[in-house]
């Protein structure tokens, strides 16, 4: 019987120098472009003043206005500005979950409308305004999209209302 020859595997070492060069360059690029505060933006529009008469529509437009007062949030709908809901503060905090569910239900019934007017009182803090904008913009339950039946087909929305208009509370 022949003895099985033991072959010693002599693996050659990989030349890592070019890889290291590339990694160093990459690290420098990332170090210079690194921003340790993650910044994002919220789109908003200035209110438009127009002398033109609004277009005549068969269905009454939603014209959703969210008024932020110091003790409550009022949700107004239609051109007449009728109050749809009044959401009182609870334990000194605005009930933003309630606000989100109210505006989400309104959006479900008005899929062709995509803008909301945020109207804060003069003494409302900027932080609160951002919280309210988040509540009327970002979908509930952490969902990224919702699909609803719309005019014989389906419509998917990624945000409750995506167009925000900031207007002073008069």
């Amino acid at each position, binding site marked *: 019987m022949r003895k099985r020859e033991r072959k010693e595997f002599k693996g050659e070492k990989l030349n890592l120098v070019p890889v290291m060069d590339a990694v160093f360059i990459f690290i420098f690029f990332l170090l210079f472009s*690194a921003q340790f505060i993650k*910044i994002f*933006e919220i789109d908003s529009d200035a209110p*438009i003043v127009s002398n033109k008469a609004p277009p005549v529509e068969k269905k009454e437009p939603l014209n959703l206005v969210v008024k932020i007062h110091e003790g409550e949030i009022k949700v107004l709908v239609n051109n007449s500005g009728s109050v749809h809901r009044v959401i009182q503060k609870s334990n000194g905090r605005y009930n933003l979950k309630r606000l989100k569910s109210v505006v989400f239900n309104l959006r479900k019934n008005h899929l062709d409308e995509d803008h909301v007017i945020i109207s804060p009182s003069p003494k409302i*803090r900027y932080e609160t305004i*951002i919280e309210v904008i*988040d509540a009327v913009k970002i979908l509930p339950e952490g969902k990224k999209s919702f699909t609803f039946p719309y005019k014989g087909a389906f419509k998917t929305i990624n945000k409750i209302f995506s167009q925000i208009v900031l207007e002073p509370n008069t």
Partner: protein
Amino acid sequence: MKMKRRNREVVVEELDITSLLDILVILLVFLLMSFNASDLTIDLINNLTLPYSKSMGMANHGVVVQVNNKKEIWVNKNRVGVLSSSAPSDVKITRVLRKLASVENQKIDKSRQDEPKYINLIFDKGLEYQDIQVVLHSAAEAGFGKYKLIVQGVE
């Protein structure tokens, strides 16, 4: 006496870079995680704390207005003034922003010059709406009809 000169062979030992590579990979992953694709770089002024938001919109390059908790207004790294209820500070801001709007106008096509322009607005989270309103009004007067409210992402 004759002495034989010994030929000493110089053996270069290879450096063990395994641990160095480990550190580099960790650094690389950390930097990749904190990489922000936004082309807007902001040097936040003193006394300014950004509000948190769940919004994920990417900020873009443009005119930047910052207002800190002492109500100091900075336009593109230049201090413009202080917001106050007595002085007509909005007139000065509008004047500065109009100049910037005309500069922005020169960069774009003539056909798009009438379109509302974007402005990046950075406010301290403690500011009241009455102060913010002055800046918003001045921006709109200067031709910046689209506001980009800069916020800090929630981790």
